[in-house]
């Protein structure tokens, strides 16, 4: 499964980066969204994927029955998802405000703060 996922994730990275290189701020933010999803999937995939063995322990037992999926990447990804959501929400509102002020969605029109 992992090779297939790796392929898809590679594609996700590529599309994300391609979108970030566009001039429109909307595409930029979609690129960011794709990128963070791609990174989360990467963590999940690289650690190895397991079918049908969620890291849960049946009631009354001390240890899970048999092998379970690695819970640590799941926790890490969960944290990363929530962080990415916060950051993206911020970015989305930022481009909205930027558009309201600059009156254009073209990044090339937002270069006054550079030299």
């Amino acid at each position, binding site marked *: 499964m992992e090779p297939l996922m790796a392929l898809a994730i590679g594609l996700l990275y590529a599309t994300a980066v391609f979108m*970030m290189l566009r001039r429109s*701020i909307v595409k*930029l933010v979609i690129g*960011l969204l794709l*990128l*963070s999803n*791609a*990174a989360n999937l*990467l*963590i999940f995939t*690289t*650690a*190895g994927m397991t079918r049908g063995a969620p890291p849960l322990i049946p009631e009354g037992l001390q240890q899970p029955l048999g092998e379970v999926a690695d819970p*640590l*990447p799941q926790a*890490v990804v969960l*944290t*990363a998802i929530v*962080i990415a959501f*916060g*950051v993206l929400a*911020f*970015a989305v509102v*930022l*481009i909205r*405000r*930027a558009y309201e*002020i*600059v009156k254009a969605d073209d*990044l090339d029109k*937002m*270069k*006054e*703060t*550079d*030299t």
Partner: protein
Amino acid sequence: MRPEVALPVLLPLLSGAISLLFWRSRPMQRFIAVAGNVALLVVSLWLFVATLSDGYITMQMGNWPAPFGITLVADMLSAVMVLLTGIIGLAMGIYSLATTGRGHEKFGYYPLMHLLLAGVAGAFLTGDIFNLYVWFEVMLVASFALLTLGGERAQMEGAIKYVTLNLLASVIFLTAVGLLYGTLGTLNMADIALRLDVAEHTGMVEVLAVMFMVAFGIKAAAFPLFFWLPASYHTPSVAVSALFAGLLTKVGVYSLFRVFTLMFDQTMGYLQDIMLWGAVFTMVTGVLGAAAQHEFRRILSFHIVSQIGYMILGLALYTPLAIAGGAFAIMHNIVVKTNLFLISGITHRLQGTYQLKKMGGLYRERPWLAVAFFISAFSLAGIPPLSGFFAKFVLVRAGLEAGAYVATGFALAVGLMTLYSMVKIWNEVFWKALPEDNLVPSSQTPVGDDGRLVKPSLWMMYLPVGVLALMSLLIGLFAEPVMNVMTAIGDQLTTPSGYIEAVLGASVSPEGALASPGEIQAEETENGSEDLP
């Protein structure tokens, strides 16, 4: 149980949470801003003193033994950085009282400041690579919010670049963490260091190293990854600029120091040259960028980039002396650069502009401000006996001893160009007479109740400026104790085994770190076990 290692993170988090709860009450927030930051300074001093005597201080958060839980570790470098965070935090807390507008205060300026400090302190103290990512994000999102607070057009434009490029760095960082976990199966930095030493696929190790280098390089604003900094640092309110200038990029530099001395020490052979030239170009492009500017804060922003080059140079040379010099540069720069931004705020308050062309006459009008600027600016340029001189001297000596003559030559030339910009500011803002077309805005010269002119009360702005200028002077005059600390940092960083032992306990081997977990587990909480089925 060493609470001092966790408190510098937890206290500002607490101050931030409380400050947020009091979002309706400005006086309360202002009180917390000072009280919380005083407390932060006190605990960071505590940590510093403790680290000075013990070398390493660790805390296994949640009482989970080392590679499994999250460890907070303070070595000399962390302790110094946290101490500086405390100092800068308090300076900013006081300075902000005078400069922060009512609207900013109402919309969370102070909580954001506290949480930014928490993120910075967390990044300095954590011993876990994913936890480092989390603190980076805390710091980053706080900085996003502070950067956009106020909603000016320039802020928005700057923020888009700042946010995007920093997020790119974050994703690279996160990707690297993911790959690292996939490769090594651990997140604890000391454990990573052990496993990397025996990792068979050196190609992957190298890839991880370069990914961390790029990710932290972006955060640190190293060449050619610094673009976000000059585009945004001059846009927010000046106290925010100062806070960013002092601390944020240094977190990136700190991470480079940490990661490349602790984890990737064996990869340095390949990366050293890349890093060395990166450092040289960072210095040169930054300082040249500053030479092309004619606005107070833009000049200072580009100089941040340039100074980062010095710090990375110290790391790239990779000798104990050079690392000590790099650490000295970090420390000196935090104090001085923050102060220069604070001074630019005062001059702006006095003259209503950041354009050098429109300013002038402050040498005669505000001699003490001139003295503070003079000390800070010439310290930045590395003039003895101020703090910057020692940083430069140590680096030059280390560079010449290591035979890196070209890089050292550039470092010296950059010092001269730094002087160029600083003298430009001095000549224009302080020596030149105030141009006649500068109509100082009416709000700058408030009129009292009886109709007479009142001097604006600036002591809350002057106090931090004065203290920081004095620090720069004292660091230079009493360089010996400071240098001892820096030497200790250099020694600690070049012998990572001390750090690893402090985190994982004595007698560790790569296998030991993986030993069967049940045996390692410490005593269980006493009141917990009996209550449970």
